[in-house]
């Protein structure tokens, strides 16, 4: 008998390489992520050390991006702030992914009243513009890392739930799932071993795109003073701080803006790339 020798992993990597734009996206995103993770370890300047003698210093060897109005090193602030912003954004997507798709998976699998209840809650959440809902939650719960994660993840829940429910509904009718019932496997085993692994593809694409949106929302909440609180650096907070002296120190606005843009671009291109890898749309 003849058996193909390529593994699944191998072909996925191959497909990713074939699309240059997707590949560029993955490079950009890994660039940003590596920079904010490794950067603070190499550039060991304290991002919150005030040096009033050196306010708004021009870029130099000592301060590659200059300093802000309180004399704090901007490079260090961007590196640490990027770390915080990305961490909070990714964390909120993970929360939304786990709870949203968890609810959707179960919803499509068991159907009935549970499905109806979950979908009505999702409809209610979807009725609000995401950023507005995030603002309301952040304002009600107060600022801070945990509350920002909550505020950004809740508006993202319904999309994950709906997407996963649609997958779950489709997969539960597949013949291998019927065969699993016929064999007499337990419902939990069928859900986690047969339905879930075949339903996750589109959700990972959605997660990547949602991460881009989350970066924007985390920075937005920070900008409005409802997100991560000073003195902890955060890209949105740096932006709002520096807009008052935009003309004296343009790097203080440009640098965080560029990091935010690159992360969003990277996440979106990664989403496209994952779409190619999982062949979302062709149904296989």
């Amino acid at each position, binding site marked *: *008998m*003849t*058996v*193909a020798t390529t593994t*699944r992993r191998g072909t996925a990597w191959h497909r990713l390489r074939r699309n240059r734009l997707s590949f560029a996206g993955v490079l950009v995103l890994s660039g940003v992520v590596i920079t904010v993770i490794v950067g603070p370890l190499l550039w060991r300047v304290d991002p919150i050390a005030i040096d009033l003698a050196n306010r708004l210093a021009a870029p130099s060897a000592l301060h590659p991006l200059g300093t802000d109005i309180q004399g704090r090193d901007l490079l260090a602030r961007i590196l640490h702030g990027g770390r915080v912003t990305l961490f909070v954004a990714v964390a909120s997507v993970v929360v939304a992914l786990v709870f949203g798709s968890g609810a959707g998976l179960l919803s499509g699998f068991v159907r009935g009243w549970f499905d109806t209840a979950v979908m009505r809650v999702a409809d209610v959440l979807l009725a609000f513009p995401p950023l507005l809902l995030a603002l309301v939650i952040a304002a009600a719960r107060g600022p801070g890392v945990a509350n920002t994660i909550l505020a950004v993840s809740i508006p993202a829940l319904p999309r994950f739930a709906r997407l996963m429910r649609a997958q779950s509904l489709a997969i539960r009718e*597949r*013949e*291998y799932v*019927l*065969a*699993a*019932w*016929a*064999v*007499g*496997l*337990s419902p939990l*085993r069928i859900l986690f*071993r*047969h339905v879930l*692994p*075949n339903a996750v593809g589109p959700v990972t694409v959605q997660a990547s795109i949602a991460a881009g949106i989350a970066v924007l929302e985390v920075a937005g909440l920070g900008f409005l003073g409802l997100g991560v609180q000073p003195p902890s650096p955060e890209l949105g907070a740096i932006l709002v701080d520096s807009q008052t002296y935009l003309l004296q120190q343009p790097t203080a606005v440009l640098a965080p803006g560029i990091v935010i843009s690159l992360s969003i671009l990277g996440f979106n291109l990664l989403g496209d790339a994952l779409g190619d890898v999982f062949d979302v749309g062709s149904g*296989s």
Partner: protein
Amino acid sequence: MNGKETVVRGIDLRVAFRTEDGRRVRAVDGVDLEVGRGEIHGLVGESGCGKTTLGRALLGLVPLTGGRVIVDGVDIGELRGRRLRRARARMQMIFQSPWGSLNPRMRVGTAIAEALRAHRRVSRAEVRPRVEALLAMVGLPAEAADRYPAAFSGGQRQRIAIARALAVEPRFIVADEAVASLDVSVGEQILELLVGLRDRLGLSYLFISHDLGVVERVADRVTVMYLGRVVERAAADELFRAPAHPYTVALLAAAPGRFPREVRRAFVLSGDPPSPVDPPSGCVFWPRCPVGPTVDPSRTICRTEVPPPTTVGDGHVVACHFPGEVRLPDPVLR
């Protein structure tokens, strides 16, 4: 069935769905079925007549709205939970499409092992040899266990699906168009495998097919369905030699390769099968029947009364008010 023990028995089976607009469709409408040990029971009828639904309902894959399924003398409807799953697993299914019946993200060995351990304690050390034994039984090498379904051809996949079904040591297998989507030569091998397993393991089959030639060769008895009901049942040779229901006659006459074209034309049914949402009154076949009230208006009974099953020969049962009126010409071809 010649007095052999009954393995699976369905009594007055009914399956009804609701359509999107809330109307009731009776996909299976009061079907009785009995399959004996070692029997291959053919189930034929045009698409949409409820063959697949009947097969799935026996296994509990679609909920019954009426009737009982009895396996080895045990009424499945009286069991719950783990015992129900175990009893149901005595019945397995081979699906039409080998492409859809295997989980693409699970290694073949894992899928078979999962079935092996579903109802029995099998130690870790025992699993691999038993998986390999099952693969060997369906004619696949032991290495197949380590691969994903994507690595296999349609015929090989169908063998894997059979191995998985055999892992739970079933007594009865519903083969739903199990060879229909395969190349003829490959389908032939799978057919041989299924019949061989019947002989070796004493399995029984409900062999669902639209290919009458295949059914004639492998089936011991044949049931003909039309619009969710049984219209005729007989031993295979009897049914193919002397069909008594006008629908069976039309079905046989239409089958490719049995009769010259002129004969096929003469027996072609008029119209489409009626919608099961709104079935005809009385005998569901009357609007298309060549000897029914559309041809002979005096036969009002066809429109008013459901024909009861009538015995016309040894184990030959027909649901028709005027059985045997339409006869097949002697086969000329083949």
